[in-house]
C-alpha cells in the first residue's frame, strides 16, 4: 500500500534498454528538486521500492519488450497506470534491442554462448549449456511498447534530452498534451 498523497504519483520502469533514458532523466539536475516537490516517485530503478505500486498516475517506460518478463511487467504497468509514456527510442520503436529481430533466436544463442564464448578448457566447460534457470525466456522479437499495450504518449530520442523529458513532465502536470516531436526525434 502506498501512503495517500495529494501529489500526482509517478513510476519509471527500465525494460530492454541501456538505462540511457534514465541517465537522461537524472540529467534534469537541479530540476529534480523541483520535480520532487511536484510529484511522488513511487517506483523506479533509482528508488528502493521493488514491486510496482497498485496505482500510479504516470509511468515512464524505457526499453523495448524483449523477454517474457518485460511483457509481464508491461501488462502490470498498463493495468495500474492512468497514463503510460513510452520513453525513448527502444520503447517507441524497438531501436537497438530490435536489431536482433533479423536473426533467429537459436542463432543469437549460438553467437552469444558458443561462438563468442571463451575457449573451453575443462570437459565441464566444453559441454555447452544455455542458461534457462532464473532467466526470462526471450520473445521471438523485441518490440515497441505499443505493440503489446496501449501507450498514451511517446517521447522519441536515444536518449530523449533532459530538456525534452522536463517539457514532457511539465506539460502533463499542467494538464496539456505535449507535442513531443517539437523537442525530440528518432535517434536524437
Amino acid at each position, binding site marked *: 500500500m502506498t501512503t495517500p498523497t495529494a501529489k500526482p504519483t509517478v513510476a519509471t520502469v527500465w525494460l530492454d534498454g541501456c538505462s540511457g533514458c534514465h541517465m537522461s532523466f537524472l540529467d534534469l539536475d537541479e530540476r529534480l528538486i523541483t520535480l520532487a516537490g511536484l510529484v511522488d516517485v513511487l517506483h523506479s530503478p533509482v528508488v528502493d521500492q521493488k514491486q510496482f505500486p497498485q496505482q500510479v498516475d504516470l509511468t515512464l517506460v524505457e526499453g523495448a519488450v524483449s523477454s517474457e518478463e518485460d511483457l509481464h511487467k508491461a501488462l502490470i504497468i498498463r493495468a495500474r497506470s492512468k497514463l503510460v509514456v513510452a520513453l525513448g527510442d527502444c520503447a517507441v520503436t524497438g*531501436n537497438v534491442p530490435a536489431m536482433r529481430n533479423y536473426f533467429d533466436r537459436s542463432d543469437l544463442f549460438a553467437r552469444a554462448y558458443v561462438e563468442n564464448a571463451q575457449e573451453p578448457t575443462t570437459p565441464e566447460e566444453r559441454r555447452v549449456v544455455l542458461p534457462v534457470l532464473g532467466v526470462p525466456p526471450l520473445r521471438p522479437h523485441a518490440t515497441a511498447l505499443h505493440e503489446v499495450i496501449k501507450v498514451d504518449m511517446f517521447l*522519441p530520442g536515444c536518449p530523449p534530452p533532459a530538456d525534452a523529458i522536463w517539457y514532457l513532465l511539465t506539460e502533463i502536470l499542467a494538464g496539456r498534451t505535449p507535442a513531443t516531436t517539437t523537442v525530440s526525434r528518432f535517434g536524437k
Partner: protein
Amino acid sequence: MNTPVDIATESITLRIDDKDVSCRKGETVLQVARENGIDIPTLCYMEGLTVWGGCRLCMVEIAGSPKLQAACATVCTEGMIISTQSPRLENYRRMIVELLFAERNHVCSVCVSNGHCELQTMAVKLGIDHVRFAYRFPHLEVDNSHDRMRMDHNRCILCTRCVRVCAEIEGAHTKDIKGRGVLAAIIHDLDQNWGESSTCTSCGKCVNICPTGALTHRGTAVGEMTKKTTFLPYLTLMREAQP
C-alpha cells in the same frame, strides 16, 4: 529555347491554397508552389532529375477531381484550384512515412546519417512520434565491396534518386532497381557487388543525393555522414547552357 515568349498565351493562372499564382506553360504544381513559397513535402523529387512520382508525399487535392494527384508530376492548367494541406493529405503523408519506417530497418540512433537524414527530418515535420504499423524487420545486406562507398539496403527507401543521378547526370547507369514491392532493391550492373561493377565511375553523386543513410562514404561513424546536393543545380544549369 531562347525564343521570345508571348506572355499572354504562354502563361497560366491558378490558385494554390487560396493564393492566386501564375506560371509558364508546362510547369508542374510542385514547381509553382515552391516558387511561391508554398511548401509541399517530397522525398523522391530532386530538381535537376526526371520526375519519378514514387514517394507520393507531394499528393495534393485538385478541385473537381476525386483523385489525389502527385504535385511533382502534374502540369498546371488554367484555372486549377489546388489544396496542398488538408486533414486527409496530412493523414496520408503521415501514413506513407510511417510505412517507410516499418518496411526496412531504420535504426536512427546507430545510423551514420543520424541528424542529417531527410526521412528523419520528414518524420519531425509531420509530427510522427511513433509508427502505428508493425515493423517488418527484414534481413537485408550491406554492400561493402566498393573501396570508397557503401550501400546499406536497411536504410533504403527506394526513392531512385541514385538511379536517376547515375543515369541522367553521370551517364553511367550503373544503378537500377530489381524486383517489385517489398522485394524491390537497388542493384549495380547485372545485380553484382558494387565493387565489381565495370560501369561505376566512383563519382559519388549517388552518395550525396541519397536522402538517408543507404548510400554513404566508407569510414563514417554514427551521425558523421553529411550530404552535399548543391552540385546538382550547377551541373544541370551547365548542361542546359550548352548549345
